[in-house]
Structure formats: structure tokens, C-alpha cells
């Protein structure tokens, strides 16, 4: 009975806190994405540019670590039994990728564009070594090009 109470408390806490944190995070992501809308972020390596007009080209990196909450983990555990898409982790990865891109953009202050952008994800934490998802890290990196004014 004690174990069940702990489980239910963790589940409700995970759901409430997780949903609230996710809502706040998405609101912040949307605002900042609007703010950085003018900065093109592209995956191609080369663009037709006059080299003499390029002031500098530097590596910019943005990374973020987001933890999965108890409710999402339980939901994913149930999905592991029945199969199908693990929808509870979709928002987690989506938030991590977008946050990493935003942080990379912040780093590229004053740049005209960021080229050759790559995004990578990895799981970290003790659980990750046991084949389970603990926290996820998303890292976005690219080459920021600043043009001469």
C-alpha cells in the first residue's frame, strides 16, 4: 500500500510539474523564435558569397539538457509493452532541439546566417546506461557568418 501511494504521488507530481514546465518552456521558445526569425539557419555547407565581404566565420554551439518526468516515463513504459509511437517523448525531443537551436542563435550574435547546421541528441544520466531514458541532451552547432557592413 505504501509503495502504491508513493507511486501515485510521484505520478501526479510528475504530471502536474511536467505539464506546467512544458507549457512555460514552449511559451519561451515561441517568443525567442519570433525574436530570431531574421537569422537564417541552413544545413548546406557552401553558399555563393563574395569572400571579401565576409568579416568572420566562427563555430557556434548551443546545447541543452532536459529531464523526463515520472509521468512521461511511466507512459513510455506502457508504450513499451503495447508498441506504437511514444508520444510523451515527442515534446521532450522537440523542445530540446528547438532550445539548442535558439541557444546557438543567441551565441551567433550579430551574424547574418548560420551555415552547415547539425543537431545531435544523446541520453545522459544513470538510467541511460541501463538502456532507459534518463535525461536527453540536444546539441546544435554550425558556422556563423558575419558580413562586413
Amino acid at each position: 500500500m505504501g509503495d502504491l501511494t508513493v507511486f501515485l504521488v510521484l505520478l501526479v507530481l510528475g504530471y502536474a510539474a511536467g505539464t506546467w514546465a512544458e507549457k512555460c518552456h514552449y511559451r519561451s521558445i515561441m517568443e525567442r523564435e519570433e525574436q530570431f526569425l531574421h537569422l537564417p539557419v541552413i544545413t548546406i555547407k557552401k553558399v555563393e558569397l563574395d569572400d571579401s565581404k565576409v568579416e568572420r566565420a566562427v563555430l557556434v554551439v548551443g546545447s541543452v539538457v532536459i529531464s523526463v518526468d515520472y509521468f512521461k516515463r511511466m507512459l513510455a513504459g506502457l508504450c513499451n509493452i503495447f508498441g506504437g509511437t511514444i508520444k510523451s517523448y515527442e515534446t521532450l525531443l522537440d523542445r530540446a532541439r528547438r532550445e539548442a537551436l535558439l541557444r546557438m542563435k543567441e551565441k551567433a550574435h550579430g551574424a547574418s546566417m548560420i551555415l552547415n547546421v547539425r543537431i545531435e541528441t544523446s541520453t545522459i544520466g544513470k538510467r541511460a546506461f541501463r538502456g532507459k531514458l534518463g535525461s536527453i541532451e540536444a546539441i546544435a552547432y554550425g558556422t556563423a557568418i558575419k558580413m562586413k557592413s
Partner: protein
Amino acid sequence: MKFIPRQPTSNVNVTKTSAMWEFLVLAGGLLAIILVFYLTLGFAVEMLIPHLSPGIEQAMAVNLLPQIVDGETDETKSRKLQPLLDHLQEHCAKLPYHCIIKVSVSPQVNAIALPGGTIIVFTGLLDKLTSENELAFVLGHEMGHFVHRDHLRALGRGLVFMAISTILLGPHNQVTSMVSRFVNLTELNFSRRQETAADHFSLDVLHCTYGHVEGALTFFEKLTAVKPSHDNTVSFFSSHPLYPKRVHDLKAYCRKHGFTSGNLTPLAE
């Protein structure tokens, strides 16, 4: 064509769904599957019991016996009581296997019918008995459980796993010993119907052996007088609940079949 940066209107990477609803559907589904499995096991027990041969029952008992008789057994007393059991079995209680009595040194006022035909009588109960008739009633009652195979039903749903693993893997295997660890034999629960049927069987045995049923009712009266002590030694009530209707039922059965009272046979020293 000029590129105009704008935010996408929708997010294809995130499925629009209610996480809580999904959780409830999946958890409910899982619970339903477990429930169906549990109920099926219940039916499987009833279907399995008539087909379990005494041989398989004895092979299963190998794993159960050490759990109950973990303490001291009184071999001398066991040997003294065995002839009475043999006599009852030979003349009045036909069973598919030979029953063995084991006296376990314990303050518990209890007797247990184990799969494989072993009857455990605790010294706590023996000390309360004053006549052979009372002991015969207790043994008859336990044999009644054997006849109706209640002792197998009482093992519960674990019986299905134990029976299958014993049939497939033999008496000494890990599955049976693992499942048997979860079976608490001292707290076996029998239904009222099973208890009544065992009582009736025992009365028949008493009447067949002694020509009267003296001792059966005095046994119950004696047990009712015993106050449950702090160490809960009067467990004959917990595994064989004594309800008012039970004594009334015994009397009615005696009247119906014309069973009479008689002289008690003293307990052999």
C-alpha cells in the same frame, strides 16, 4: 522570389494528444489483461484438479512440506498415532493414497491437510484432546478435505504453475519451489461449504468406526472455550473458521442420519 521568414503554423513533430487520456487507456488495457489472466487461472484451477493424479500431487508436495514442518517433528508421537489413521483409512475413508500423520512440535492449535496425503497435527491441538474420538474427528475432517480435494483448491492460482512445472520438469525444479514460497499453508482458507462437507465426511467416518459420533461436538465446545492468546495460537479458527451455524449443522446432520452418542474411547498413551 524573395524569402520571407515566418514561423510554421503547426508542429508536425509533436502529436496533438492528451497524455493523461493515453495513460488511462494504456493502464486500463494492461489492468484488463491482467484481470482476464487472473480469472482464467481461477477457472484453470477448477479444470485441473480432477485431472491431477495422486502421483503428481505427491511430487508437488516435496516442495511444500519443508515450509510447514520447519520445526521439530515428534516421531514417537507420529508413530503412535499412525495406526489410528491407518485404521480409519482402511475401514471407513477410502482415499487414493496412503495418508501419513506427522506431529509437529508447535503451540498452534491446528491441523493441516497437505497435498500428497500428509496430515500435520500440531502438539498444541493434541494437548487439547482427551479422547481418541476427538482425534478421529480431526483426522476425519482433514481426510474429508483430501476426498473433496479442497487442499489443492486452497493452494490457489499458484497451483496451475506448480502442477504444470511439476509435470514438465519433475518434482525438484525452480519454478515449483519459487511458487511454493508464496503459498502460506498455515493460513489456508476454506469456504463454509468445503468445511461443512469435510465435517459431514468426518461424522460418517466417526460413525463407521465407533458406531456413534460422540466426541465431535465436545471437540468444538472445547475449542470455543480456549481464549485466543497473544501469540495467536488458536489458529484452528483462522484456517477452519468456527461459525455458529457449523455446530448447528453438525447436530442437524447427526439427527438426519440417526447418529447417536456413545462412550468415548480414551487416547492411547
